[in-house]
Every structure is written in C-alpha cells, then in structure tokens.
C-alpha cells in the first residue's frame, strides 16, 4: 500500500514538473511585483495602493471625451500605476516602469536588449512600430525597443 502511495505521489510530482517544463518562458499571467506586492492590471486597485503605502506623488487625469470621471495616477519612484474608474471603484489600468531601478519579475528593465526580452517572454509577440506586444488574456505587456535597447515597459488591461 505504501509503495502504491509513493508511486502515485511520484507520478504527480513528475506530472507537475512536465507541466512546468511546457510553460517555460511563458508566464501564467502578467503580474508586476513591487517587493511582495503583486500588481495585476484589471484588478481592483484599492488593496494594492494600500499595501504600497504613500506614493511619491499623486495626480488625476481626464480619461477622454464623454467621460467626466478621472484616472488616478500614483508615482512610486521607478514605476507608476494608473487606475481606471468604473462604478465608483478604481481598477488598475496601466503599470509603467519608469527607469532601470525597477525591473519586471522576469528581469527586464529599461536598457535590456531585445534578445533579453525574447529570452524572457518568448517569440509569441505582436510587433507594432518599435514595440513588442505580449498578450495574456486581457492583460498586455508592452515593450518599446529602440536601437536594440528597451526604452519603455508598461502593462495594461483591455477593459472592453
């Protein structure tokens, strides 16, 4: 009986390892991390904003014609969070990495090379202008590469 249980356990572990191998180079969901705080585009921003503590600066932006609600913009040094208002709640719209003091959980930062990006996120991207667009569900990781180096990184969410 013990042997049978051990065999099942071994098969389970092997199965999990196989699944992990299949997903190498492709993350489950685009999540940005600041310390232990996970920041996921499209999710309610309140818990994240509270966990991150006071922002270095805060601003509000108009979100476009025909809409009088305001987007909230929180700057935390190396990165910025912009929220999208909907039904009296604010959802994370965009997370922008602003300089090389901050990197994505997969190690990409401003100044990384195009090869670094492809090694970290794979070749399943859409190319538009100078940008590489990685889509995962409704979250998107946008990376602008100019002259071989990353100049801009931002995550966003398709609210439509």
């Amino acid at each position, binding site marked *: 009986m013990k042997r049978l249980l051990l065999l099942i356990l071994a098969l389970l572990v092997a199965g999990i390892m196989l699944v992990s191998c299949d997903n190498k180079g492709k993350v489950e969901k685009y999540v940005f991390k600041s310390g232990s705080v996970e920041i996921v585009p499209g999710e309610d921003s309140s818990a994240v904003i509270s966990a991150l503590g006071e922002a270095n600066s805060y601003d509000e932006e108009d979100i*476009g*014609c*025909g*809409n*009088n609600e305001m987007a909230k913009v929180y700057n935390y040094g190396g990165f910025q969070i912009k929220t999208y208002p909907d039904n009296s709640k604010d959802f994370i719209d965009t997370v922008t990495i602003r300089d090389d003091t901050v990197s994505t959980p997969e190690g990409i930062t401003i100044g990384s090379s195009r090869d670094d990006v492809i090694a970290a996120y794979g070749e399943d991207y859409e190319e538009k*202008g100078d940008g590489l*667009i990685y889509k995962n569900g409704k979250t998107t990781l946008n990376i602008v590469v100019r002259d071989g180096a990353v100049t*801009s990184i931002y995550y966003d969410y398709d609210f*439509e």
Partner: protein
Amino acid sequence: MRKEIKITIFAVVSLIIVAVLLHLCSLVLRPKYMSQPLEGALIAEYYGEVDKGRQHQVLFVGDCEVYESFVPPLLWEEYGITSYIRGSAQQLIWQSYYLLEETFRYESPKVVVFNVLSMKYGEPQKEEYNRMTLDGMRNSPVKHQAILASMTKEENIASYYFPILRYHSRWKDLTAEDFKFMFKRDTVSHNGYLMQTGIRPMEKSFAEQEAEAINKIYDPDLPATAFEYLDKMKELCKQNGAELILIKTPTNSSTYWWYDEWDAQIAGYAEQNGLDYYNFIENEAIGIDWQTDTYDRGLHLNVYGAEKLTKHFGELLVSEYGLESQQSDVGVSSVWKTKTEQYYKQKEEMERGQ
C-alpha cells in the same frame, strides 16, 4: 367562427398592448444624456434643426475635437456663415462617413470639414462610444450600415433596434431625468458645439508630452480601413458638390498624440487627392494660450480657445473658399440672431456659475 374572431382580436390587442408597454419601458430606460455625459445627446439634436428646413454652408464631422473646437454662432456673428457640427465622442471615421451620407439627404453644405484624429483607428473601439453616436441617429439604411461598421465583437445588432435589450438593467439607476426627458429632450449644444468655460491649464510642454507619447507603442502607419473611408468621404463630397477640407485641431496631448508619421501620411494623401489639409497644432497665428484656453490640461479647447480657432478658420473659409455672408437674408438672420443670443446667455451663465 365568432369565437375565432374574438380570439384573434384578443391576440392582436394583447400584442399591441405588450408592444406599447415595451416601447414605453424602452423610452424610460434609454440614457437621456441631459446631464453628464451631455455628448450622447449631440447626434440626435441635428434633426431638430433640419426638420425646420435649416440649411448650412459648412458641415463639420469628427470626434470630440470638432464639437469642442468650433463655435457656429461665432462663425455666423463674425462672417455670416451658417454651420453645423455633427460631432460625437470618439466618432470613428466610418461613423463620420455615414453621418455625412445621411446629412446629404437633408441638405447640401458647400464645405465639409473632417478632423483627422480618428484616422488612427481601423477597428471598432468601445460600445459606450458607439452608443453615443449611433443611438442618436434616425433609423434608416444609412444607420444600419453605420451600426454594422461600428459594432464590437460583443455587440449585437438587435439591441440597436430594440434598445430595451441593451438598457434593461438600467432600471435600478433610473432618475427623475429619465422620466422628465422620456419624450422630449432639451437642446444641449449650439449647432453641435458643446460649451466648456472651465480653465485647467496645460502643465506639460508639447516636448514633454511628445517624449511620453513616443514611449508608447503606436503603429506609424495609419490603418488602411481609415483611408478606405476617407476615399469614400472624398467621393461622397464630390458627388454632392461639396469641398472636403481635412483639419487637425490645435490640441495635442500625450494621451491623444498626433504623431509626425501620421501627419505626413495625411499631408501626402491630401496632396495626391487635391484636398486641403490644415494642421493647427502649434499654429501661432491662432493665438491659443494653453494656460487659459483649455478646460482639461490640453486635451480639449474651452470656449475661449474655440472662439480663437473659429475666428481663424472663418477667415480661411471666406478667403480660400469664397463663402459668402448670409446676413442679408432676413429669415436666416432672424434664426441666427436667436442662436447667437442663446450662445452668449449660456456663456455668461456658465461663467457666473464657476
């Protein structure tokens, strides 16, 4: 036999009652746009104008940049030019095209002005914005085509003809406004111009905004679909004897940046097709002051900026396109005298209310 007739009559009457009730529910549930966002009321207002037989020398079509940038009562006051703006929030080029096609059924403007910012979109965008343009159009084959061209994947055409399918869940958000404006709505614009008197200065320079804008991903090529509709718009104007003018309003913010590559493509298209294109961004002759002439930090002009642009554009309409003043026409003058008075009255009220 008599029983069958009774059943038939009962069925028909029941159907009529259900249809009337559904229609009434639909009238209540549809958003009225009589308070914010007022933009949703703009497209339907046009019919009140043309049903009175009023014609216009100039027609503007496009997105928020047209209904916040040109002031028809001022164009009349300064130059005697009659005009209407068929603008709406995030109006896409195929919507501009179909609105133009519909407009030519009612009148024959000499000049059509199209703002090119929407050329950046080649696919349907947001349902809320579609509604603000399409729900206001009268039912017609043109509207049907506009709906087909505009629908996002999640939308279905039936909801445009039976609005209750779309708005049934609004019952819990109903306000007194929904009942007050169930049958008739107030006029919120001045021939399509939506007034804003607030002042919120632009905080970042154009150079700073450009730096932000070019760090976003954008396609340097404007979509082919947009050019197809621009071709159609050009042909439609030609068939109807109207001059098509392409413009880009002076507003330029990192959120809605007008990239140099796009500008070059529009300029090239205009040249190839014998059209005039005016890019008013950073045109000093207009005299826009970004500390006083915008209500939202440079996304749109306020009334003071719109008045400056209108005066500048009016001069062009007279000098380059030979539009003549209609002020000697007593009937037209009488109508526009009222419109001008209403414009200044609202401006004063809004300024006082701030």
